[in-house]
C-alpha cells in the first residue's frame, strides 16, 4: 500500500514482461487552481475566488476527515515539474501507464462540480472538467478515456451534459459518486440514467462524495479509517436503492460499475435483498425479478482496493459467486492505496480468467478495442 519505490528498474526492461492491462480507475488532477479557467465563463472565476465551491460539508479547503497523506496520494507520485500527484500526463505515462503496460486507462476526475450546493456552478465546473479531460488527457494519449462528470443533484442539467457528450469517443462512461443528497435510486437522479442509457454509456459510481448525510446511520464517526471502510456500506445502500427503486426494471440496457468500493460484500447483499424481497415484495410491485438477478445482469465491479482474505481459496470462492466476467482491474493511481497489477491476483487463476480480469472484461464493457 503505502510504499515508496526506490531503485525503480528502467521502464524499457519491464514492458515486454508485462501483459497488457486496463486500469479502470485513474485519477487525473489539476496542476493549478486556475487550470479550469479557460473552460469556465468569466463570472465563475470571480465567483470561485469570492465564495469558492461550497460543498455539502463545512470545510473551505480539504476534506472533513484529513487523509492519511497529502491528497490521499502516493508520495512518490509528485511530478518532477511540480503540482499535485496525478496532474502531469508525462509523469503518469512514465510512472504508471508505460511500465505497467496500461492499454486502456479510464479517467475518473474527483474534484469536479459533484456535491456542490450551487447547482449552476456545479454544472459549469462539470462541463469544464469534461472539456479539460479531452484537451489535457484523452486527445494527448489514446490509451486514456474520460468519464462524463455531471451536476449530480440537478437531474435535467446532468442529462443535458450527457446528451451533449453522447457519441464523443473521448468518453466511455458517465461518472457519479456514491454519496449524494439522496440514495441514488431516487427520482431526482432518474434523468441521468435515462440519458446514459440513450447514449449507450455505462454509469460508473465511484466511492466518496458529500451529500450532507452522516456516513453512518448513527451520525458522524471520528476517524478517516471509518470513512474509508464506510464507503463499502454506502455503496451497498446505493446499490440496494437502485435495485429497489426499479432503475434496472425501467432501463434494461443500463450497465453500472461500482468503483473503489469493494466487491466482497456483493454476494451477501444480494442474498439479503432476495430473502427480504421474498417477504416484502408487495411493497415494491414494480420489481418483476429477484434483486440478485438485476445485480448480476447490470453490475460490474472494479477491483481496487482488492479483497484480501488470509486464505486464497476464500477469494476464489467469492469471485465464483460474483463471476470472473464482472470484475474490472483498477489501480486507483495515484492514490496511496494503489494496487500493483503484478501482485494483486494470487497464483492459481486460469489464463482465461486472468485475461478477463485484467483486460477482456473492460474492453467488452466499455466497447474499446
Amino acid at each position, binding site marked *: 500500500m503505502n510504499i515508496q519505490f526506490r531503485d525503480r528498474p528502467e521502464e524499457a526492461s519491464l514492458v515486454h514482461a508485462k501483459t497488457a492491462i486496463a486500469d479502470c480507475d485513474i485519477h487525473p488532477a489539476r496542476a493549478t487552481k486556475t487550470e479550469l479557467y479557460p473552460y469556465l465563463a468569466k463570472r465563475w472565476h470571480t465567483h470561485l475566488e469570492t465564495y469558492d465551491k461550497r460543498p455539502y460539508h463545512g470545510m473551505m479547503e480539504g476534506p472533513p476527515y484529513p487523509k492519511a497523506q497529502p491528497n490521499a496520494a502516493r508520495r512518490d507520485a509528485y511530478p518532477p515539474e511540480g503540482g499535485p500527484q496525478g496532474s502531469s500526463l508525462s509523469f503518469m505515462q512514465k510512472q504508471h501507464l508505460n511500465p505497467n503496460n496500461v492499454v486502456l486507462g479510464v479517467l475518473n476526475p474527483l474534484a469536479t462540480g459533484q456535491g456542490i450546493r450551487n447547482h449552476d456552478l456545479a454544472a459549469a465546473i462539470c462541463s469544464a472538467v469534461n472539456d479539460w479531460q479531452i484537451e489535457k488527457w484523452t486527445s494527448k494519449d489514446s490509451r486514456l478515456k474520460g468519464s462524463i462528470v455531471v451536476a449530480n443533484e440537478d437531474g435535467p442539467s446532468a442529462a443535458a451534459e450527457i446528451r451533449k457528450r453522447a457519441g464523443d469517443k473521448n468518453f466511455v462512461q458517465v461518472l457519479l459518486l456514491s454519496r449524494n443528497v439522496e440514495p441514488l435510486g431516487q427520482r431526482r437522479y432518474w434523468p441521468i440514467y435515462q440519458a446514459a442509457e440513450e447514449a449507450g454509456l455505462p454509469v460508473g459510481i465511484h466511492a466518496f462524495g458529500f*451529500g450532507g448525510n452522516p456516513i453512518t*446511520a448513527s451520525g458522524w464517526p471520528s476517524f478517516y479509517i471509518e470513512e474509508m471502510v464506510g464507503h463499502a456500506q*454506502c455503496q451497498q445502500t446505493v446499490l*440496494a436503492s437502485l435495485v429497489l427503486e426499479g432503475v434496472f426494471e425501467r432501463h434494461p440496457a443500463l450497465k453500472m460499475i461500482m468503483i473503489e468500493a469493494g466487491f466482497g460484500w456483493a454476494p*451477501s447483499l444480494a442474498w439479503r435483498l432476495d430473502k427480504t424481497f421474498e*417477504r416484502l415484495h408487495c411493497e415494491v410491485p414494480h420489481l418483476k425479478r429477484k434483486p440478485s438477478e438485476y445485480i448480476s445482469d447490470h453490475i460490474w465491479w472494479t477491483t481496487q*482496493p482488492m479483497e484480501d482474505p488470509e486464505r486464497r481459496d476464500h477469494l476464489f470462492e467469492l469471485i465464483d459467486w460474483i463471476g470472473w466476467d464482472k470484475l474490472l482491474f483498477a489501480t486507483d493511481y495515484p492514490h496511496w492505496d494503489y494496487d500493483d497489477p503484478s501482485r494483486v491476483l494470487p497464483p492459481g487463476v486460469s489464463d482465461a480468467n486472468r485475461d478477463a480480469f485484467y483486460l477482456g472484461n473492460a474492453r467488452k464493457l466499455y466497447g474499446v478495442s
Partner: protein
Amino acid sequence: MTSPTAGGVDCDLHPAVPHLTSLLPYLNDYWRDQVTTRGMTDLVSQSYPSNSPITTRPDWRPSQGKPGSSLEDMKKQALDPFKVSYGICNPLYGVQMVFSEDMADAFCRALNDWLANEWLDKDERLRGSIVIPTQSVEKSVAEIERCACDKRFVQVLMLVMGDMPLGKRVYWPIYAAAERHGLAIGIHAGSNYHNPPTSVGWGSYHIEDYVAQATAFQTQLTSLIVEGVFARHPGLKMVMLESGFTWLPPFLWRLHKFWRGIRMETPWVDRAPLEIVRSNIRFSLQPIDAPADPETLNRLLDHMQSDELLLFSTDYPHWQFEGDNALPEGLSSDLVRKIMIDNPHATYGRLKQSVIKEAP
C-alpha cells in the same frame, strides 16, 4: 431439517408491549399524567410495523393483539419446540425514539420493570435485556445499576442506529457499567430515526430500511473497534442481534486492510480487527442471509474462520424461517451444540449464576 440440541439458549426473542397504556402502572404520577394529558400514542417503530410480513411469521400472527404480546404463544411457538433452557428477551418497543432524555428514561425504566413482572416472573426460562435511554449516558448507567441486581438481566440492549456511532468515547461509561456487572452489550437491529436510516440518506421503502440494518452493523463494528473500546474493556462481550453475519468476512478483510494501511491514526488499537472480533464480538444466528444450499453455507462459515461467533436465535416472532427450521441445513452436530449451548454460555456469564429472586 437440522435438529436442535435440547437445553440451548435462544438469544433473540421479542416480547411485545401491547400498548403504551400497558406501561402506565410502571410510570410515576407525572409521566402517567403526561401520557394521558398529551394524548400520547403507541410507540411503534417504523423499523417493525406491526402488520409488516417480517414482523411476524404468518402462522405465528395472533388473532388479536401485537405479534409477540402473548407469553403462551411464545412458549408454544418458540420456547417449547426448540427445547431451550433459556430465552433472552429483547423488547423492541420504541422508547428510544422520543427526543426528550427524561421521557426516554421514564419509559425505559417502565419497560424494564414491565419485562421483569410480566415475562421474567412468569417463566423461569426467560432472561432479560436492560433497555437504556442511550441519549443520556448518565441515565443509562443509572438504569444499568438499578436493574443489574436482578440477575435475570443478562445484557444491556442498544439499537444499531442511534444518535452517534457506538464506539464514541461518550458511551464508554455504559460499557464500563456492563463489564462491572458481568452483562453483555447487545446491539439490535432498528433505528431511533434520529439520523437517516442509511449512510446515504432517506430511502423510500421499508424493505430498504431492513436491508440497510446490515450496513449499520458494519459501521458500528468499525466504530467500536477503531475507537478502542476493546483495548479498554478486553473482557467485554458485544452481541450483534438480528444483524446477519454473512457480510462479516469481507467486511473484516476490508477493515483489516485499511487498519494495516493507516493504523497510525488509531494507535491504541492494540490487536488486529480480526482478532478483536474473534474474542469480543458475537452474532445471533437469524437472519441467515445466504442461499439454502448447505454447501454455500458451509463455505461461508469457513470464511468466518471461527466456530465461536454464532449464538442460536429464532428472532421470534419475526419471520426468518419456516416451520421448525431455525437451524439451517448442513450444520454438523458439533457446531449445533456450540451455537446452541457453548457459545451463548461463554457470552452470557450470568446464565450460569443463580437467580436471586426479588422480595415479593
